[in-house]
């Protein structure tokens, strides 16, 4: 018996980001094998093709890395999935696209829904609807929007983002805020760069953003809607493990029956569950007595 194989049809050295994706794929109990793509041994069940590589055999599903220049449109059209690290390209391609994220938030960032924040604030004696703002002047905490902001130390920023009723920020910090599930107000450029048009409230005038955040904080339905959209964006576009799992699903390479635990790992990945989370540990404890080899085989030609 052998593991499902993903053959590589690469024209040039794959970009570093693609290597990271393949390492995540190999964690999913799927052998990644460049040699098999040459025709020797068992045929791969699917392929990953990059620009300049051999043409995938007919009838076998494949993922295509979207080349930066001279795209072979026929090969892209026929791909089961098109991998890209470009948000605008992913939006343009639509459902066929899959993001290989260029940036990922701190894995310690766990989304906190607005109503849980409210209960947490009440339990800690914090203000009802505090806001947090991050810009060139640093991070500031607003106990309520009518007050001036209090400067935050660096080591307090994550905690403030995690309990705030809403946030205002731009640039790379937007991903950080969305990873904590904080309803957020931002500028058009930041939203576009992250593909966060539906996940954040976009306000052009910087002077209006704090008021917009206060309004967002006061509207539980809008806050819940933006929280859900923001966390979905982070989970499905900025999470390499999720992208690896989704690629295998679309290539019809399900977690192998050779390793039942792969099904469990796959299930946890769909929730964006960090490997070291308490629940993942509980699941491993449930399965510990079973004679399962949890460590997947490493890919031929790919090392950590």
């Amino acid at each position, binding site marked *: 018996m052998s593991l499902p194989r993903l053959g590589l049809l690469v024209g040039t050295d794959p970009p570093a980001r693609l290597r990271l994706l393949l390492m995540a794929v190999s964690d999913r109990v799927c052998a990644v094998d460049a040699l098999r793509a040459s025709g020797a041994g068992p045929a791969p069940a699917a392929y990953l093709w990059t620009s300049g590589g051999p043409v995938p055999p007919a009838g076998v599903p494949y993922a295509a890395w979207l080349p930066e220049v001279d795209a072979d449109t026929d090969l892209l059209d026929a791909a089961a999935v098109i991998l890209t690290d470009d948000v605008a390209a992913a939006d343009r391609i639509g459902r066929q696209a899959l993001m290989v994220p260029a940036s990922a938030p701190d894995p310690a960032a766990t989304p906190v*829904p607005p109503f849980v924040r409210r209960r*947490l604030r*009440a339990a800690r004696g914090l203000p009802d609807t505090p806001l947090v703002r991050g810009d060139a002047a640093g991070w500031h905490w607003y106990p309520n929007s009518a007050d001036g902001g209090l400067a935050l130390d660096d080591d307090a920023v994550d905690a403030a983002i995690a309990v705030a009723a809403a946030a205002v920020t731009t640039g790379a910090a937007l991903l950080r805020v969305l990873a904590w*599930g904080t309803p957020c107000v931002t500028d058009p450029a930041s939203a576009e760069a992250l593909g966060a048009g539906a996940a954040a409230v976009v306000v052009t005038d910087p002077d209006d953003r704090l008021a917009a955040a206060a309004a967002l904080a006061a509207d539980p339905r809008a*806050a819940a809607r933006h929280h859900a959209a923001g*966390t*979905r964006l982070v*989970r499905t576009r900025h999470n390499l493990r999720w992208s690896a799992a989704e690629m295998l699903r679309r290539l019809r390479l399900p977690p192998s029956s050779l390793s039942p635990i792969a099904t469990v790992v796959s299930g946890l990945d769909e929730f*964006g569950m960090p490997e070291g989370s308490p629940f993942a540990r*509980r699941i491993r404890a449930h399965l510990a007595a079973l004679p399962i080899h949890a460590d997947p085989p490493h890919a031929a030609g790919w090392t950590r």
Partner: protein
Amino acid sequence: MDVLVCGAQKPFMTGGAEQHQDNLVTALRAAGHRAEVVRVPVAWEKDRIFEAAMAWRLLPLDADVIIATNFPSYFARHPRKVVWLFHQHRAAYDGADAQADWSDFGTDDTALEAQRLITEWDNVVLGEATRLFSTSGVIADRLARYNGLVATPLYHPPPLADRLHEGDFGDYVLSVARFDSNKRPDLVVDALAQSGGIRAIAAGRGVLQHHVRHRAKAAGVADRLELPGFVDDDTVIELFAGARAVLYAPLDEDYGYTTLQAFLAGKPVVTATDSGGVLEWVEDGVTGLVTDGSPRELGAAFDRLAADPALARRLGSAGRERVRGLAWAPIVDRLLAP
């Protein structure tokens, strides 16, 4: 089409959810589909709440479509997963917010983390649904408030819908509900104590049955309150038919079959402003009387209907008209629409 209706099973408990799932299967079969219920045991305590969810995640469900109904059955994976939501794990949501005695989610760190996780997981698995329906507007509103999700209410007929019938307007107010705290069975006692002399019959069973009996004695209304316990279908149909009115004032009800059954029997419903889904049906002065839920107002509503049978008849008739269009066939069509 092969359809699996997915639901949670709390061992040794049967209630409205199970009836609803069974009736859905009957309706699916009547429409020519193969249909079965799949149930997996669940534990409601927060320390064990995620295990059944994960189990649903791993189940092989071979069917053309699955219809998931309640927590945690909607964790099931299927390319065509339709969710018709009866309820989420309310103890983690509105129950916690209301500090209800049936919620074990406090504001300690463990409870908040469990609440965070359950919300995030719900967002993922409910977001997977190819179609997301709820059984009432109350449930759709909870989804919007807590999860930021949009669900379409899909209203269905209650059990016994084809057998309930009108009858005389008798001398008693009827209550049909489990004797559990969220159904507020105390209210029938307290309202009787504030009313002029009408009788009441409170059918059902539950943990508060003996408590209510003692409360009635203490309030001096035991001679006006009949507590028959669980009654069979034939009996409950006749109890509805002969009632002057029906009291149904649970706390933030999801849907509330009793309301619809009362209307199908042509009876007005007395309820409270915090009774949730009941208020999607009961309009004050049109199909029933909406009170603030206090014994004084409930008792006054009893007296008003006792003194004015024409009013009871008019409200009950409007209620019957209100539920006239409820049927299973259109629901099956909506659930299985491509």
